[in-house]
């Protein structure tokens, strides 16, 4: 397993890029730790696949270097990088048995029959296909074939990194839970460096130690799921993570008070003078619907989504979403909202502003 360093890495598909808009991937400087699981998350066209292809060696970056531990691999082929990859669609040999499919990467590297048998048995148990080891892959369902692909990706212990490109897209919701859990326990057991590309926030957040959020060729935040939830560094992160995403509300900010639609609200922390477009961000989970206090809202609709309700409302002319627990009743007199100061962040020109001090909040 290896530490991965992205050193002034950037990529443009154009021969002579003029400005930032010509880059599919804008300059990156990051060190990704050995043995950790990273997810690259963003909408289509955000550059996550470009970055994965650079790491796997399918694409040579137009600028910068990529290092595995201390070795520069920028110009190495995929084979020379010694990595394992799992793709969106299953890649299995139909005429081979499940056992031979799983053993293939090991035999290719000349491992002894004992090692092959031991590893294959272990992986087969992990993916729950021990009973099918002797049968040919042909005729198996897409789910089963993708499980073989995942198993083959993880069968070798001596790879530098394991790369996954949307590996659960073709899988039914129930099976996704099972496979993701298996991936997670494999990571716990073997400590591979893993990189997982997805546009699905649940997959990214539940799989990774660190989530790399990308938009328009740029990394806007690398953080733990908790950091992305509680302290989104950019309004895009607030929007993209969470369902529904963070409410972003134009506001004036004066010290530890905010003003929204002429109404005063406590921010929990104090901020210095701000310039540019100033907004506050508060996730629907941190907004509480009340009858007595807070800012007035007009409720448009209540959606019952099972384990909670989503209230779609309007706050001084802007849409606002509120999450209410399944068994909490919503009554007609609940026409105000209160923000939990812990869940309030302040943004200037879309980037989060650090508060001056974290312990002024009690003034609220």
């Amino acid at each position, binding site marked *: 397993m290896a530490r991965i360093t992205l050193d002034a890495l950037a990529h443009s598909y154009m021969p002579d890029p003029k400005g930032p808009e010509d880059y599919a991937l804008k300059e990156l400087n990051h060190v990704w730790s050995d043995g950790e699981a990273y997810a690259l998350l963003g*909408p*289509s*066209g955000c550059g996550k696949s470009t970055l994965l292809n650079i790491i796997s060696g399918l694409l040579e970056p137009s600028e910068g270097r990529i290092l595995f531990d201390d070795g520069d691999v920028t110009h190495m082929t995929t084979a020379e990088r010694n990595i394992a990859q799992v793709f969106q669609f299953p890649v299995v040999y139909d005429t081979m048995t499940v056992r031979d499919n799983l053993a293939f990467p090991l035999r290719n590297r000349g491992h002894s029959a004992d090692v092959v048998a031991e590893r294959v048995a272990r992986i087969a148990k992990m993916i729950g296909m021990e009973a099918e080891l002797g049968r040919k892959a042909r005729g198996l369902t897409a789910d089963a074939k993708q499980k073989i692909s995942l198993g083959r990706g993880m069968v070798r212990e001596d790879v530098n990194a394991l790369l996954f490109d949307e590996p659960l897209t073709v899988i*039914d*919701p*129930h099976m996704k*839970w099972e496979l*993701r*859990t298996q991936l*997670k*326990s494999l990571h*716990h057991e073997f400590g591979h460096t893993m990189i997982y590309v997805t*546009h*699905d*926030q*649940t997959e990214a*957040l*539940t*799989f990774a130690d660190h989530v790399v959020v990308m938009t328009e060729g740029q990394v806007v935040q690398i953080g*733990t*799921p*908790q950091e*992305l*939830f*509680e302290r989104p560094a950019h309004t895009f992160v607030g*929007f*993209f*993570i*969470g*369902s*529904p*995403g963070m409410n972003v509300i134009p506001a004036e900010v004066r010290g530890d008070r905010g003003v929204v639609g002429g109404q005063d609200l406590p921010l929990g922390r104090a901020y210095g003078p701000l310039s540019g477009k100033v907004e506050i961000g508060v*996730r629907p*989970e941190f907004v509480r619907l009340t009858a007595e206090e807070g800012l007035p809202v007009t409720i448009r609709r209540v*959606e*019952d*989504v*099972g*384990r909670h309700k989503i209230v779609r409302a309007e706050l001084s002319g802007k849409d606002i979403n509120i999450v209410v627990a*399944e*068994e909490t009743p919503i009554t007609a007199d609940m026409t105000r909202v209160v923000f939990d100061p812990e869940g309030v962040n302040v943004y200037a020109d879309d980037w989060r502003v650090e508060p001056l001090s974290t312990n002024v909040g009690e003034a609220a």
Partner: protein
Amino acid sequence: MSLTLEGVSKVVGGYTHIHPMDLTLSKGTMNVLLGPTLSGKTSLMRLMAGLDKPATGRIVWNGEDVTGVRVQDRGVAMVYQQFINYPTMSVYDNIASPMRLLGKSKTEIDRGVREAADLMKLTPMLERKPLELSGGQQQRCALARALVKDAGLVLLDEPLANLDYKLREELRVEIPRIFEASGAIFVYATTEPEEALLLGGNTAALWEGRVTQFGPTADVYRQPVDATTARVFSDPPMNFLKITKSGNRLVFGDNQSAEAKGTLAGLADGRYTAGFRPNHVEIEPHAAEAMEFHTSLSVFEITGSETFVHLDHHGDRWVGLVHGVRDLRIGAAVTVFLDPAHVYVFGEDGALIAPASYALAA
């Protein structure tokens, strides 16, 4: 306006895709077909559309038998998972094409295109070709074409499956609103319980070619008639536990037992399967009557605001979704609690014996 299936079935090469079923859909409703891959969603839609003939039964449209009527003559619009547009035509002409086929006047067509484009937020893209649009815009273009057809029956077969997560979220909110006004009957196929809940309306739970339950979406979710429906309509999956009620005890596993509380106390002695959803598994009990279970932690996943705990309960795999970010250790013993009000009781044949009492209040 209504669509009625009477004893409709479909058999292909001796293999039954759809078992004889009765179903009535009424005017201006959103009807979700919810089920895993191969449960019969697409087969059912093809029968409704008239693309396939049923092996048995009748399809009745507004009181008239249309079983043998071709799809072209039925006033049906369909949108598929793959975005289907004419690549060489502009977005304008794509949206206009169904109306041209219906022989509408130029003025009518222009008005129709502009209204649909406005609803679908495609007005600035009318002169572009579909392939110059993003996936979400391409699918909106396909939806606009379904909309202008002014069809009485609109069939949407996993229309958002190929789109990014956030676009799906946006269109899921838009689709019911956009089509609400048209008064047509909508049928929407999906594999995802969350999507069904967001769309609202009615849901038909499908399993192996049978509709196991049909009714208002929230009712099917909270009051499933059997374990199969509960399983189909639960993501993450519902947890199950085989229990034997004996006196005031529930016995399970290797002679483990818990006191039968709440509604469970009223069960007759016998064998049952208890079902409960992951979000009702608690680490800190909130109800005085909570039952206690000893499990070990296989894996945990943090979503940012919540934690999924994957638990091993005497060989049964359970999933719990608990509030907050938890610092846990794999392999550790975890005691979880369950409010009896959140437990569904199914018979050995899977039929519902006692609903979760909270659901009756909700």
